[in-house]
């Protein structure tokens, strides 16, 4: 019998490592929302001299792939420098877990984002972050690269689902090359809104479909 999840995924799901909160963390982040059915919280302690992650914990509201990815990234990131940890990819996490089902990519990528955001949060709080820059279509595109196209498990930019992208006076308009009644349309719309709306100078996001 073959489970859709690998043995390593199931093992991390049953016994997740480094679960919980860190009191007074140096950096923290919460990614996802109950809407998409998955959330990951990441908390880090940073060695100020070596700029390494001395401790890391995570919390998860989500499915097995979400919990397992949260668990594996804490193992991958512990002891690494911030620069190294930032570069951990979904692909690496997936490989360390013995592979993840493609349809679950969007649930598991959250943990990677959580880690990066927690590091960013540390950098912002310690004056290491870059100045807040005005949002450009390029920045939006970078965020859209984090939105998965569940049909292929790859992001919506790479799979050419973004037909139009407009940015004007803090209003973003995205046109997705899918019919509005496609089974994944509501999920994609919600994820795009969630990714772009938090940008500091964006007031409104509208997502449209081609038919």
């Amino acid at each position, binding site marked *: 019998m073959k489970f859709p999840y690998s043995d390593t995924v*199931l093992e991390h*799901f*049953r016994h*997740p490592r480094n*679960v*919980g909160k860190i009191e007074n963390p140096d950096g923290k982040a*919460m990614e996802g*929302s*109950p*809407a*998409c*059915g*998955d*959330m*990951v*919280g990441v908390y880090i302690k940073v060695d100020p001299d070596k700029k390494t992650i001395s401790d890391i914990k995570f*919390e*998860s*509201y*989500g*499915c*097995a792939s*979400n*919990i397992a990815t949260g668990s594996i990234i804490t193992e991958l990131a512990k002891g690494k420098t911030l620069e190294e940890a930032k570069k951990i990819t979904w692909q690496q996490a997936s490989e360390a877990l013995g592979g993840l089902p493609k*349809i*679950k990519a*969007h*649930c598991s990528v959250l943990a990677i984002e959580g880690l990066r955001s927690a590091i960013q949060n540390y950098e912002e709080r310690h004056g290491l972050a870059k100045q807040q820059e005005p949002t450009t279509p390029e920045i939006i595109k970078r965020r859209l690269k984090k939105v998965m196209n*569940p049909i292929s498990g790859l992001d919506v930019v790479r799979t050419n689902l973004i037909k139009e992208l407009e940015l004007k006076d803090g209003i973003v308009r995205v046109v997705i090359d899918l019919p509005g*009644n496609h*089974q*994944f349309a*509501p*999920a994609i719309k919600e994820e795009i809104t969630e990714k772009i709306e938090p940008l500091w100078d964006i007031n409104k996001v509208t997502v449209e479909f081609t038919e």
Partner: protein
Amino acid sequence: MPEKRTYFDNAASTRLDERVMEAMKPYFFENYAVATSEFAYTQGIEARESLDEARAKLANALSCSPEEFIFTSGSTESSNMAVKGVAIALGNKKGKHIIISKIEDFPVLQSAQFLGNQGFRVTYLNTDVEGFVNLDDLQKAISDDTILVSIQHANQEIGTIQDIERIGGICREKGVLFHTDATHTFKRIPLDTAKIGVDLVSVSAHTIHGPKCIGGLYVRNGTPISKWMDGGFQEFDLRAGLENIPGAVGFAKAVELVTEEENRQLETMRDHIIHRILLEIPDSTLNGHRRNRTPQNVNISFHYVEGESITLHLDMHGFAVSTGSACFSRSLQGSHVIYGIGGDHERAHGSIRITLSRYNTMEEADAVVNTLSDVIRELRIISPLGKEIRNKEA
């Protein structure tokens, strides 16, 4: 790996009863002729008689006459046949408006959506928080061009039983056809077509320990409905395709075997599970009505945790249940039923459905609650949600 596997997803499928298997067996090995061969040879005549006998038993269960019962490949086909068949028959004559509830099962829901794309107007009725359709809304929604109302007898996920007697009454009064999907109520909740103003009823064998891929559609005499599956002249020329005689015989046997006593036992087990969960697992919410629900259905949302994780943990302990979580579905969308009754995302993603059968025992019922209690506690330790609230309580 757990030593024992317990199946609690009996709304999806049930274990075949041995007595059903025995009744079907001769039609695989001894007489495997089809009923359409009745004018050619003896086996064909026997096949025809067996099919007629099975049909008579099904008709008896629905208090209708045999020619009002059409065998199909299951209730999915039955509901497609009812909704699309009426639309084809009346769409160009009477009108292009149909009414369904928001929480219908997919066969009706998607047939309605299909018709919506073909130029029909579809009204999706809201329900209250327990899943009951508002009958005033139904009254108001019916207009001159309405050809069909399709409202399920009971819900597939939360078990809520609709007042189909009154719905039938409203439809009669307004002169509109009424179809009900009785997949989850057939032989569990009485449905007397002689007393209720219903014109079409979908039923299935797989929910009552019968074989898969056999079901039926009750079609009241004189109901305008188009043949939809074309081919031969089977089933009173309403549904083409080889007759599934072993299936029909098995279905009839399965119908015979469901007793009132069994339904009362299921109700007792259902109430025991609901009572224990609500009492022992904090922050759990019952979906549907406490009493006005199918005897076999339990559906509860556990806050702060996600359903796929719950089902996977339960599976590791040997229990098979179902969830309304998006992660569990191929569409990546949470249960349209939980959203339909006004539930939020967390309630949909954290909903667990336990459906009971003849073969479940009280020991198994207690065991699944005990395991569920442990699993929910463990997952809540990992979850970032609800901590503040729970810490305050502790």
